[in-house]
């Protein structure tokens, strides 16, 4: 058989091999460009709003940057200050970890508990779902103002009601021991989003699993422990991860509550000088970061703080996800 190029079956002379390759490459390029064109909205968004800020933040963390003049490279000085000299960092880290340790489990349990009750309700399900979801729609600033008013130690209705039954209510947002619990109450109140996800997951648990468990003699607790929890474990994992990230980033509620409760909310335009009130108990990591970056003209240092927050968030999430392999069960047999 001849190895020379021969005419193909149509009788036309065949295209040389390199021309064919070129055509294929062109077609490939076109395909890639089409893919890129379709991906471009995401690519542009990702680059402009995620990759660029992230890389820029890492860079700025090694600089002195006062927001007003060009940044100047100072090496590790910001990190040295962060780890060895800034005494406000540790209260801020403590407060934020407190939230992660206390708020996240409470939030998951509360959302799960409410969702569980809602699946049991026989009448007015739509009404109760709406009622429990509604707080999630309240704007955070308005909700915080509302709670500061409700929990006002002198004029608030909560302490008023406690007084009626002979209990002297705490100072809530004005007491360093109670300010974080008060914020926790506020955040638990707005747990609607997590609750809705739990509700959807609970409704999704296959009925036949309960039936067979019941036939095997499993009581309510065993059904919950061995059927419900494993079935909704991916949702628990999701809410733990999201809740942790939210707790690490808590800002608005702490900012508003401390400023208002301190009683020096100023209309004269000077920056709020009561962040963390009372006694640094609401000085969460992002609040300190904001203060350094935007109030103290120390954006390079704020960037270093942001990098640390990113690394810690990433590490905590990684630990949770790694750990979850032991207890999360995905439908379809995966673990």
């Amino acid at each position: 058989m001849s190895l020379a190029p021969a005419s193909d079956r149509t009788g036309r002379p065949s295209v040389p091999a390199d021309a064919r390759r070129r055509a294929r490459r062109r077609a490939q390029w076109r395909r890639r460009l089409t893919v890129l064109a379709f991906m471009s909205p995401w690519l542009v968004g990702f680059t402009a709003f995620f990759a660029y800020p992230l890389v820029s933040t890492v860079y700025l963390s090694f600089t002195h940057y006062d927001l007003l003049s060009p940044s100047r490279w100072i090496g590790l000085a910001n990190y040295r200050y962060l780890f060895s000299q800034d005494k406000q960092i540790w209260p801020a880290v403590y407060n934020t970890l407190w939230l992660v340790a206390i708020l996240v489990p409470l939030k998951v349990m509360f959302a799960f508990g409410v969702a569980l009750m809602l699946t049991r309700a026989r009448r007015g399900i739509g009404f109760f779902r709406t009622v429990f979801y509604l707080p999630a729609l309240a704007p955070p600033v308005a909700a915080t103002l509302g709670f500061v008013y409700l929990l006002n130690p002198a004029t608030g209705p909560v302490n008023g009601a406690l007084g009626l039954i002979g209990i002297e209510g705490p100072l809530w947002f004005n007491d360093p021991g109670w300010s974080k619990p008060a914020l926790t109450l506020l955040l638990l109140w707005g747990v609607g989003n997590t609750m809705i996800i739990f509700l959807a997951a609970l409704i999704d648990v296959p009925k036949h699993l309960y039936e067979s468990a019941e036939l095997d003699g499993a009581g309510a607790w065993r059904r919950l422990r061995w059927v419900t929890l494993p079935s909704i474990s991916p949702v628990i994992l999701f809410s733990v991860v999201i809740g942790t990230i939210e707790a690490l980033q808590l800002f608005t509620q702490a900012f508003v509550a401390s400023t208002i409760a301190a009683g020096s909310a100023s209309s004269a335009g000077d920056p709020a000088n009561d962040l963390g009130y009372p006694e640094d108990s609401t000085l969460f990591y992002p609040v300190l970061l904001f203060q350094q970056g935007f109030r103290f003209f120390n954006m390079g240092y704020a960037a270093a703080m942001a990098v640390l927050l990113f690394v810690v968030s990433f590490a905590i999430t990684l630990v949770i996800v790694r750990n979850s392999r032991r207890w999360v069960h995905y439908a379809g047999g995966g673990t």
Partner: protein
Amino acid sequence: MRRIAMAMAAALLLAFGVGACGGTGDDDTADKAAGAPAPKPGRLEPADLTLWVGFSAPRELRVFKGAVKEFEQLNPGINVKVVGGISDDKLIAASRGGKAPDVAQSFSADNAGAFCGSGAWIDLEPYLERDGISDDIFPPAPRSYTQFKGTRCALPMLADTYGLYYNQDMLEKAGLDGPPKTVSELTEYAKKLTVKNPDGSLEVVGFNPSMNWYSNTPANFGPMFGGKWVDESGKSTLGSDPAWAKLLTWQKDLIDWYGYDKLVKFQAGLGDEYSTSNAFEKGKLALHVDGEWRTAFIADEAPDLDYGTAPVPVDEDNSDLYGGGYTTGNIAGIPKRAGHKEQAWALLKFLTTDDRAMVMLSNGLRNVPTTASSAKSPDLKPDPKFDTFVKIFENEHTTTTPITAAGSAYQELFNGFVNKWQAGRVSDLEGGLADIDKQIDAQLANVEGGQDVP
């Protein structure tokens, strides 16, 4: 897939390159050239200027527009647009990019360090020199809070001065004659004027010494004991100047007399400082340290309140300090990105150094006029209660807070400490103050350039 990954890596590198430029993208050489003004023009070229002010209430903006109108009449062809409600965040953003105003006013003298130190506002010294204006026309305090490390980038535009407000009715009922002049008298008055409810809670507080509530701040109380913030080298002296420990000890003793928890509860039950439910206006406080603007608020919100004003009482050991107080104020300057610098300077000069403009603004806004001559102007609306503050402003013992590159960071670190102290959670006052000094110095060193502090 690999190519996409490479494209993304390229995008990241590009982003890094842009980030590495430092985020401002300003041209330094152009800024320096802008610092040197041309010879004084005979007549200003027509231009449309923008003036950004922090004032936001319609009444306040009307006052500004009135003064600006005068300027426009004196300088035909120049139109000024006054934009109110501008915060420092907006000023900072405008300094970095976008459209900057020709003249900017900020409420926070604390931020003069950032504006002057970074060159975000231009150096006004060459303009002042060219036009033969000495900064001696301003008293020492406003002269100090409008410059940073030798760069004068701002001029004072009305000041806030703090003094003692006293409820005349309550004083008379308690048989007290005139306002307290010393700290011991203040303590005595405070106790006498306090009214407790049957359950022990506080109904009326004679004088609330709690810091960081309403206008009670270490800055406002410092002049009562002559507390100095920094030494000549700029190092924090909260621990080494005994005045601060004395102030805090006195303040804590009085708090303990009321009971800290009772005082906190009392405060929580009061209305917002800048509302018609202000505690002094409502008769919940007999004596209170506040700024001169309160006279206008009282005239508007509580016209029947019988009250008087006086300088803050001073420590017996420093009785010569009586008559002085704390002052800070609005600052105004020309952002380096301003389009019409010559015309902007003319407007700034008019609003901050022309007696007529100063008096007009002071009469309308009821803030203290900032030039020594306008403070004596016969056109200043006569009001003895307000005059107290003009006198405090002119007093040689009146002080202000230092200007640093980190804004009010040092005050906020101190505030944090004072909050713990007054709640009774600091056992070693001297040690605590020395520690705060260290923190403030380290913080400042970090902000000023990231150098390490031993």
